[in-house]
């Protein structure tokens, strides 16, 4: 599944990134790499953007960005 499908209060682990070059580098600089554990915290009232928690900090991503991140659900 992709990161934008992760439900609030659910956790996942990044398995792959499919973003184009510029966005890919940005995502990776913010710590979204294969193996990173990530939790969906909440969605904005309109469902977009989405707040995630990773590496001990909170990051806001738009749906159009989150869908380039493949994750597997974690318990």
């Amino acid at each position, binding site marked *: 599944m992709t990161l934008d499908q992760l439900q609030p209060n659910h956790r996942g682990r990044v398995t792959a*990134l499919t973003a184009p*070059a*510029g*966005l*890919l*580098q*940005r*995502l*990776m*600089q*913010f*710590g979204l*790499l*294969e193996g990173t554990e990530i939790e969906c*915290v*909440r969605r*904005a*009232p*309109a*469902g*977009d*953007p989405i*707040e995630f928690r990773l*590496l*001990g*900090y*909170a*990051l*806001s*991503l*738009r749906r*159009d*960005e989150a869908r380039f991140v493949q994750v597997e659900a974690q318990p």
Partner: protein
Amino acid sequence: MSAARVELGLDDDRLPLIATIGNPNTGKSTLFNLLTGLRQKVGNYPGVTVERHVGETTLGGRRAQLVDLPGAYSLSAHSPDEMVAVDVLLGRIADLGRPDAVVVVVDASNLRRNLYIASQVLELGIPVVVALNMVDLAESRGIRISAEMLAQRLACPVVPLVASKGVGIDALKSTLAETLTSNPVPFVSFSTTIRMAAAALVRELAPAGEPLEPYEVERALIDEGGYAETRLQQRFGAAAKSALARVRVELGTAGSLAALDARARYAWINQAVDAVETRGAARTTASDRIDRSVGHPVLGSLLFLLLMAAVFQSVFAWAAPLMDLIDGAAGATSDWIKTTLPPGAIASLLADGVVAGVGSVVVFLPQILILFAFIIFLEDSGYMARAAFLMDRLMRWCGLSGQSFIPMLSSFACAVPGIMGTRVIADPRDRLATILAAPFMTCSARLPVYALLISAFVPTRSYLGGLVNLQGLVLLGLYLLGIAGGVLTAFLLKRSLLRGPTPPFLMELPPYRVPNLKAVLYRMWERARMFLVRAGTIIFTVAIVVWALAYFPHWGSTTERFAAERAQAAQTLSGGELDAASADIDHREAATHLEESLLGHIGRAVAPVFHPLGWDWKISAAVLASFPAREVVIAVLGTIYAVGADVDAENPGLVARIRASQWPDGSRVFSLAVALGLMVFYAFCLQCAATVATIRRETNSWRWPAFAWVYMTLLGYLSAFIVYRLAS
């Protein structure tokens, strides 16, 4: 030369330079302020609107210069801020030179992401000191970091700090003093193959003597589509483009170099952090508790609306008394000048030109200060990012991002602080679109103009049992018109002149903290000073020019004629009658001088241009005179209609005279159609020298203020024409 300076290899007039760099929200600016005190200079880097903070400190008895680089998550430049950071670190800013040491400020509670930029700075061959800040916050989250072990891993000194409480500053200073005098810098590289390829490219591209560092080429190779690549192409043309593409293929990696580079850095970071960090049980922090209610979809949105209403209201309501005070003081000063000095050009220049000009600048100060108090408080507390998070979807509708919301809202009070507030917007195109949309928002200077015209021409009719009245509805309509103008402008610009790929909107939501009062006050003062100095000079010049146009030639014969009338009145009248008569003579004299002035002539000359809108020369002259500051139109109309220059919008005398004004053939000048057209003109037209000056300052060129001025004036003219034709 002292022994220490010889060791440093510095000449006598250059102080050692230390750069501070780090992610946003790491307390970097707090640390910089602590090190430099308030001995700092704020300016811009050449050619870009990136703020430059330079200060001085003493390290072990020696003076040193400090430069605070803009907050950045990496040196892979995709924004002007990040490019400036790279330029400073490479010594490309002429009057700064290459830094002798770099302090990388990292947030101890969020070590991994913060070490990313540290890993890039370590490669530059400049001595590095890592300032491990906010260790108290980390400990409250159960995170403990061994500074000694981290120092071993990074091969550079690491100093634990709590900058907000001043803890660890002395240790940091003495470490910096040692670093400046000793320390061979270890060689660090995350990919020696890329570095070697970059060095070969330097020899290939740059002729002898041309300054080009392997690091710049390395960045251009890795950051596809970034600033470094663009700049290399600008300097060396198509050869650079093809060479970069060729080398990327030669390096023969499966994925992109950027991904390879990032993976290598995080692998190194994870190894280091796993070894130096221990995590206890995570405790729920105050920030988490706040976030639970503020982030709640219903409660959070309500709180947001309340907060924005409070901001909007206070900028209006709290600033008003102060603005009246400034206005009153300016008025009293010019009255005093007029009564003290003999009447003539000098007294008028001082009273109507200088004092009124200065007054028209200073009067914005209360709004700027109050608004910036809010903006800085929201930013430093961590709420600003949440506001952008909430508003992002809505703002995207007109092609912008959530970061544009606060500047737009601010512009309802005054576009000047709104435009200054666009510095929080990371993407240059979004920022420019916001700057050009902001002047459409109904600012407080439009309000008196609307109030005058509405009270003069819109009938007082109420509906729904007095809940709604027509005058209020028209005012609301004008506000909505402004919003529509701004939104459409941003929308069209983002699809034409400012078209480009949607910038990524990756935004950190920092933990909530209590802002430092001293820092808030200092930044407010900085904004105020910036506005007074830069905008002030331009507005002041314009005010003097308009004064001169409205004053000269000031025929002596006219003055004599009214003097004779005054003398006659003094002989025939007395008491209250005399006072009334001389006031009337004063007003008619002022009106006659204005009619005979250059402005009067210009008004008549351009009247044909405005004739299609139904305006006579008086309205045309008043509108022309109000281009430096739109609210001036009331005073000019007052003079032209000879009620006295000190009228206000509620003045029934002015309202009555405007209503009664006639064309030479006896028909009324002002109809509802003319008034509506005039209001629409004021809704769209950019009649504000302060805004023009601020756009010039914030975009660093005359191109955009010229564009905004022409575009808004044409839009105002056309809309006024359409409204006039439809309504009459």
